[in-house]
């Protein structure tokens, strides 16, 4: 019995390790011509998960700044950034990946949009968040897959 548990644990650890190993670290993401070509996690994004990341206050909280006609059931939409309607008509997925990963690489240092997978952050970051991006590589891929569905 003990043996089996140990084997199982080892297998799980391997699997988790493998999924993780394919993530590109925030410092290693390659921006070329305002785009990021490769998936950050090496996996495809899941648009349904991405919609959750978009509205969840603890994850992307994108809705805090961006109106989104596709989320009419959500009460409050911010107006700090442009509305997301038809965003996939304006940007290629690789550009959307660059914007979400580190908006400053696309819009310049002055933008207020946070870099969601970047370690170029503000001063005095809360202790437990030091060295951590806001979203995981897979969450960025998910939100990008979701944005890619927003056509008009």
């Amino acid at each position, binding site marked *: 019995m003990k043996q089996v548990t140990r084997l199982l644990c080892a297998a799980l650890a391997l699997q988790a390790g493998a999924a993780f190993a394919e993530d590109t670290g925030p410092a290693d993401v390659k921006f070329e011509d305002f785009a990021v070509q490769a998936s950050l996690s090496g996996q495809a994004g899941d648009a349904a998960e991405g919609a959750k990341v978009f509205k969840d*206050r603890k994850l992307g909280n994108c809705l*805090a700044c961006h109106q989104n006609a596709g989320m009419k059931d959500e009460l409050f939409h911010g107006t700090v950034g442009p509305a997301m309607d038809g965003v996939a008509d304006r940007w290629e997925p690789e550009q959307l990946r660059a914007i979400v990963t580190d908006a400053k690489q696309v819009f*310049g240092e002055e933008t207020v949009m946070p870099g969601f997978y970047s370690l170029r952050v*503000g*001063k005095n970051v809360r202790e437990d968040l030091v060295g951590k991006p806001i979203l995981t590589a897979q969450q960025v891929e998910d939100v990008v897959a979701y944005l890619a569905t927003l056509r008009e």
Partner: protein
Amino acid sequence: MRQSLAIVGLGMIMAALQVPSGANAEPVDDALVIDDVEMVTRTKAPEGHPFDEVLSGWLFREGETRELEADSFQNPGMLYVEQGADVWNRVEGPDGKSCASCHNDAAESMKGVGAHYPKWDADAGRPINIELQIDKCRVENMGLEPYKFDAPEQKALTTYIKNQSLGEPVELDLSQGELQSWWDKGKELYYTRTGQLNFACASCHESNSGQYIRADHLSQGQANGFPTYRLKQADMVSLHNRFRGCIRDTRAETPKAFSDELMALEVYVTWRGTGLSVETPSVRQ
């Protein structure tokens, strides 16, 4: 589009692509009259200010919230003014004194006082606000300990003292001592981005005032109404508590109340509201 879009090659294309953000979120055009006195909620900004016009946070609130502040019988903050009056007259400590023992009737002695803080404190070699002035009196003249930050008595007394300046325009004398260098430091902090979300005060209250961030209508982040009654917390909120809350929202470590950082910010932020009436106790959502 309100955002200053840094030009980085794509700038031109971007400008063409950007759709104007939907709901036009202008502050209301309304007059605030409290006990027959009209408050200055809109005024020309002092020289060197980033805005042309300085606006009270009152103009950015919903109708119900605005009405609560306008009616001092309804304003829940007025309860704290009453409690402050009690503390003012309460004899405390080994010397058997109250605030009134030295300052008599606050309606006279404290009239206009709150409109000119923070002030330079030569003894301490740093600026002090009303809270720290109260502590100074407690320690030096009453043989008492300073209040703990946000002690109910501290909030009530500060609210009471500020309320004696209701309607008075905010004005700082930056020529006192080294106040100007604290203003400089405060300005630097105001534009410094903090936390994992990488926002400065200016990201929300300068570049985006008038916009909505989720349900919140962003004001200019003025200090003239503090301490303020917050409906969400059903309590009085001190200025340094508000500062700490805004900084925490950037996912940064928060400086301590009355620390050099927050005193510098208070000097600078208060100056940004020059000419607005003291509205204490203001009501916010």
